[in-house]
């Protein structure tokens, strides 16, 4: 099997990132459960992180981003955690007020 012999490159990571991103995005677009949407968000962020890490990795490129890539990923993770907390709080509130977690029912403000 050739792939196992070939060295891994940035592109490989980018593909994984792309898959995660698209999966997350589709997840957000299709799940009616608000928590499912949230999981889609996590996937999307993770896909972005994979890219950052790949660009910052010294093993993959000579002119890599170095610590900057990892630092940005750190902030992404931290913000994702924060976002999850707030989103969960919103979800709970939504549930308290509407007794549902179906995002399709969250249309009180529609135009």
């Amino acid at each position, binding site marked *: 099997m050739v792939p196992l012999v070939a060295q891994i490159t940035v592109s490989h990571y980018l593909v994984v990132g792309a898959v995660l991103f698209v999966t997350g995005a589709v997840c957000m677009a299709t799940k009616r459960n608000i928590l499912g949407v949230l999981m889609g968000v996590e996937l999307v962020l993770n896909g972005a992180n994979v890219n950052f890490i790949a660009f910052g990795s010294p093993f993959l490129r000579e002119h890599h981003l170095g610590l900057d890539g990892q630092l940005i990923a750190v902030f992404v993770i931290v913000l994702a955690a924060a976002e999850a907390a707030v989103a969960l709080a919103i979800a709970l509130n939504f549930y308290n007020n509407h007794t549902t977690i179906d995002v399709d029912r969250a249309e009180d403000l529609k*135009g």
Partner: protein
Amino acid sequence: MESLPVLLGLAVLAPLASFFVILLLGPSLGHGGKSAAYVAIGAIVLAGLLSFISLGIWLANHWPEAPHDDHHAAASEHAGDAHEGESQNAKSAHDSHASEGVAGDSHAASHHGSTPPKVSGEYYVLAKIGDLQLSISYYIDSLTIAMFCMVTLIASCIHVYATGYMHDELHDITDHEAHTADGEHVHRPGRFHRFFQYLSLFCFSMLGLVLAGNVLMVFVFWELVGICSYFLIGFYIERKSATNAANKAFIVNRVGDFGMIIGLMAIWSSLGTFAFDELFEAVRPGPSHVLQTPDGMVYASAQDRVRDIARELGPDATPDQLETAIQERATTENWRNVGPDGKAPGYGYWLLIVAGVGIFCGCVGKSAQFPLHVWLPDAMEGPTPVSALVHSATMVAAGVYLAARFYPFFAPEVLFVIAIVGAITLFMAATIAITATDIKRVLAYSTISQLGYMMLAIGMGGWLAGVMHLVTHAFFKSLLFLCSGSVIHAVHTNEMPEMGGLIKKMPWTAYTMLIGCLAIAGAGIPFVIGLSGYYSKDAILEQGHLFMTTNPGWGAVFFWAAAGGAAITAFYMFRMWYMTFLGKPRNHHRYDHAHESPWSMVAPLVILAVFAVGVAWPIPFSSLRLSTLLEQARPAGGLNDMQGVLVNMVWPNEHDSHAASHVIPATLIAFGTALSGILLATMFYVWQPHLAGEVRQQFSPIHRFLVNKWWFDELYDWIFVKPTHVVSGVAARFDRNWIDWIVDGSAKVTRRFAYGWEWLADRVVVDGFVNVFAGWMYSLGLATRRVQRGNLREYVLFILVGALVLFVVISIFRVTYAGGS
């Protein structure tokens, strides 16, 4: 020595800290704010400790040395051992700083031209504006240290005393002397903590003033002292008389300060500095320290001449050339000492006089000298501890202190003015005091009179005599005030005619007050020993005698004013004491209620009495005494004979006054005048009590003149107040009739215009535009609201599609325009 600025700086800050603590915590300190007193006492006692530590450090470095035998030996022989204190200090200045002084150049200095040992420097530079440097600086010499010790000691006593005197303020108070609009007595909460808050601030201001190293800083603390006295005099703010007195004190002081500001402007505009060091060096440059007009003042006055020189040199001259030319001309034409036309005075001399008189104007206001003395008697409206503090040791002392501090800057003409003002003040105040019946007013006029003595001494060149009298007077005058406070506390009135016979009820107060009276009268055994006043007053009279020998005309006036004043002083002081403590009780109701004051008030009396007796005593077997300590601070060149330019007089060397030919007559005259004054008082008020009334009737015009305080208040009312009322009435009418009409009219026009403009600009243009725009936005919103369906997942899809479209668009752009691959 390096620790002195720190120690004294802390001593200054301690009362300030106390002020802030009481300001912030105030009534919550103990019951009714009682602990505020402890805070304030702690602060001032701490300051006192620091001051005495500083004194110790100073003495360790600059022990006042015993004088050598020189040409004054004869005087010493004549005066004998009994007069040791006075004769020895005369010589101590010669080598008072043989030890290493911070001033540095003491070795090369001549006999009369050495600079006093001092520590000066800057704590912090506040700002630098051009050449002007505003800084918090210090100037410490033995005068500073002596003032610190004196102020903190007296203030500590007064603080302790005040805890007893003011204890009524711990509770709610009904003020029987103040009335509300409906005629009720004013009922108010106690202000115990407030009182101590002000006291602390006051002590801070006074100590800061003494420590200050430049005139501007002195001025700032000067004003702080003024505002504190305003607060304290007006402490019973509900009483009309108290507020009036406070206002009066404040406003009259402003008059003096106006002069002082003129002096400051003259100094800064010509010399560009406020620091004592630099000013003194400019006026009396070493090593001879002879007074001369400083360069800055010469150039400032000779502006026309300078301009002429510039014109002669032409426009191409460089500044250096101009400078050289000016200096050359100034030397050859002798600008400084003789005017260009050969007549005195030279350029800048008038400026020097203006600066000196200006500064002295401040002293006049603060020390209640002749034209501006009117505030001080009224200031007795404050609580008695305040009177004691404000009007003996601190505020009024500030003026004398400044005059003494600024002594090297004063031209002979200024000294002449000072002497005249002092002489008038001392005589006038003494005469008024004879007829006053309010016990505190007697003391107030006595204070004015004694301040006049100090000013007179300084004006006659008796620097040491004046300063020494400042210190001794502070002790016995605060003692007297506190005694009078004790009496007032006991009988609840200020009027002496309602007292009498109190010696049985309050012996401590009576005997301590007797000590105070003796001290102020200058009692003592001639040539042997005496109370503190004996030393200082005799020194003044000696200087007066010396001055009289050198300048027979004016000198005689000054000397006999002083001598007469001494007699009157003794008279009215004993009159007061007799009326208060001897004889039969004139008001039995008050007499029955009288009682000795609590220990917290008596103890300070005893302490102060001890000091009033012995503060000027020589310490046995050592060269240390008040006079030798102060002698160390004698300004450089302060012993030079000075010849007036505008007045044809000579200011003699103070040391010459210790010659036997001056000491013996002066001492005898002082003794005689004091004795005669006391005997006269005893005769009028003890042996032949009816005589007083008869004399009063016989000399009723003079009596009326004196009772009405020489009609000064009425005079000022006529000269200043009435015309002001007339002018302001006219101005008010003009205001109402003309200016108001213009203003109202233009307002009306503007209003009309605004209505019209509002309709045109606002309603039509602006509103129209906004409404149209809002309409557009509204329809746009209506058009686009369909998209907002509230479906989260659709939004996500939109985003994705948008991202895709962006990619596609950018790709097309790249391929088409950028030629990308």
